């Protein structure tokens, strides 16, 4: 991202810059089209959520959030995130340690398999768990005999959510751990630290921002997932409705303001995610710039978060 300083530096070094610039008319026309597009596709949808949520006033807004069903949905969403995010962290840390610090056969296959959930439709993801644990599924009969419920119950929702968010933490951590290399850990071990000490005091501090980044994206996705959860939940009001599913139910009951009230909480979550993410990226760019101080300012220092990794 070209910071103002960087742009100015570049302009100072290239006196002939005019020749590679559009005329002001074209420039502002392009900016206007871009802003108009973002107004229609980003700003209006966001503002509309809150406008509709408060369409019947504050009182109605709060009342639609204080219903037992809305509370149950909020609690379930938080519960699912509280289980699936730590699972993802444990998996992500383990996977990135194995992949970034060691060489072994089948490594690229492993990375491909970890990425797999990105390219599966959420509905198909949910279907896979129905095929395994549903009544007609492989383990359906056994589960039924032992009075265990996975599909149309909380465990199924957690499984589907973990599947959908599976690559998030690992995908963020692998490049960070690769970049730090293994010398510091080896030094710590030589100085007599054991494996866990090395991990807690050497590895974790150096990857903590990448880890946090992954956790933020993972949490947002876990709380907002709709398709996969919708397939396995069974939509039992007050029991297996997460917040997004509750939004859909209220919408189908033609209770628009209440649907938007619950949706507004999810929109706030999205905004919070964006803010934290921007802060982290900004901090990382600053740290990197500081680390590369002696290097020329134009050394393409921006830490890249490729679209692939932030998606889904």
């Amino acid at each position, binding site marked *: 991202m070209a910071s103002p300083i960087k742009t100015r530096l570049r302009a100072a070094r290239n006196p002939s810059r005019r020749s590679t610039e559009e005329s002001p008319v074209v420039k502002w026309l392009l900016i206007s089209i871009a802003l108009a597009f973002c107004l229609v596709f980003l700003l209006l949808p966001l503002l509309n959520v809150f406008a509709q949520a408060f369409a019947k006033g504050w009182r109605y807004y709060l009342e639609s959030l204080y219903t037992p069903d809305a509370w149950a949905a909020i609690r379930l969403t938080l519960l699912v995130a509280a289980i699936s995010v730590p699972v993802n962290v444990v998996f992500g840390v383990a996977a990135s340690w194995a992949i970034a610090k060691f060489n072994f056969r089948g490594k690229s296959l492993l990375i491909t398999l970890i990425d797999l959930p990105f*390219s599966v439709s959420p509905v198909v993801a949910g279907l896979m768990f129905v095929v395994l644990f549903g009544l007609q599924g492989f383990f359906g009969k056994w589960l039924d005999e032992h009075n265990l419920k996975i599909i149309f119950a909380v465990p199924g929702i957690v499984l589907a959510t973990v599947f959908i968010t599976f690559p998030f933490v690992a995908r963020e951590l692998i490049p960070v751990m690769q970049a730090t290399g293994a010398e510091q850990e080896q030094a710590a071990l030589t100085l007599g630290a054991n494996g866990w000490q090395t991990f807690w005091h050497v590895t974790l501090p150096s990857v903590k921002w990448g880890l946090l980044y992954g956790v933020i994206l993972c949490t947002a996705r876990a709380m907002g997932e709709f398709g996969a959860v919708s397939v396995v939940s069974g939509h039992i009001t007050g029991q297996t409705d997460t917040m997004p599913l509750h939004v859909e139910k209220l919408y189908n009951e033609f209770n628009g303001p209440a649907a938007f009230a619950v949706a507004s909480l999810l929109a706030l979550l999205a905004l919070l995610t964006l803010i934290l993410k921007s802060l982290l990226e900004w901090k990382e760019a600053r740290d990197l710039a500081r680390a590369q101080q002696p290097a020329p300012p134009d050394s393409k220092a921006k830490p890249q978060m490729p679209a692939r990794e932030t998606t889904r």
Partner: protein
Amino acid sequence: MKKPANLKGKSNPLPGFGLTLGVTLFFLSVIVLIPFAGLALRTSQLSWADFWRLATTERALAAYRLTFLASFSAAVANAIFGTLLAWVLARYEFPGRRLLDAMVDFPFALPTAVAGLTLANLFAANGWLGRFLVPLGIKGAYTPLGVVIALTFVGMPFVVRTLQPVLENLEREVEEAAATLGASRLRTFAQVILPSLLPAITTGFALAFARAIGEYGSIVFISGNLPFKTEIAPYLIVMRLEEYDYTGAIALAVVLLVFSFILLGIINLLEQWTSRFQH
């Protein structure tokens, strides 16, 4: 990126390889591999004739067609506006640029259900946009156009985020040379800049397309889900499941999966192409 510093497996004294690989493989198996194997096993129990019959009903074909065409249209829209946005963000200074840059990721952060809900409301006859557009004959809610709108929203960040780093790393010298040689700015863009952006734009296009094919949450709200008219393939899978028609759902899911995997392969090739261009 820095290469992992000499990690030749055998002489690597770091501990924890067995433990971490074990944990990784355990979770991978439980969460990803076993569910995939289950679906594959159930599919293999179907005869080819049955599979074909279930996967190619009239209703399914209509749903594939809509899914494919709407996803393609949305990806095209994303390619055009995404290129424009990336260009504006990378090349120009204007008030609010950083805010705009951060907002581009909004569709990734917003739960798809909320996106569908608010877009349906915006484009409905009495919505903020619908009240102007519907009298003009542009119906954005409960129509195939609505599906395209939702998919455009969902896929918007892909092209921008793949193209932005390429644009920022582009050598200005080539443009200067073209200008010095007398090429107009438009000609420089079309013949010098655009060709080097094409791999990234195509990759972003393919990512947006792949995402759109599987999208469900945002569309159920805005499309109206009418069979043969505005019903997408993932929605039909959900319908089959609600009828407890597991085999019907599986057949459709396999078609979607095969299509996703083909796209995934193409995306990997495109990414290799992009990174070759960047070096």
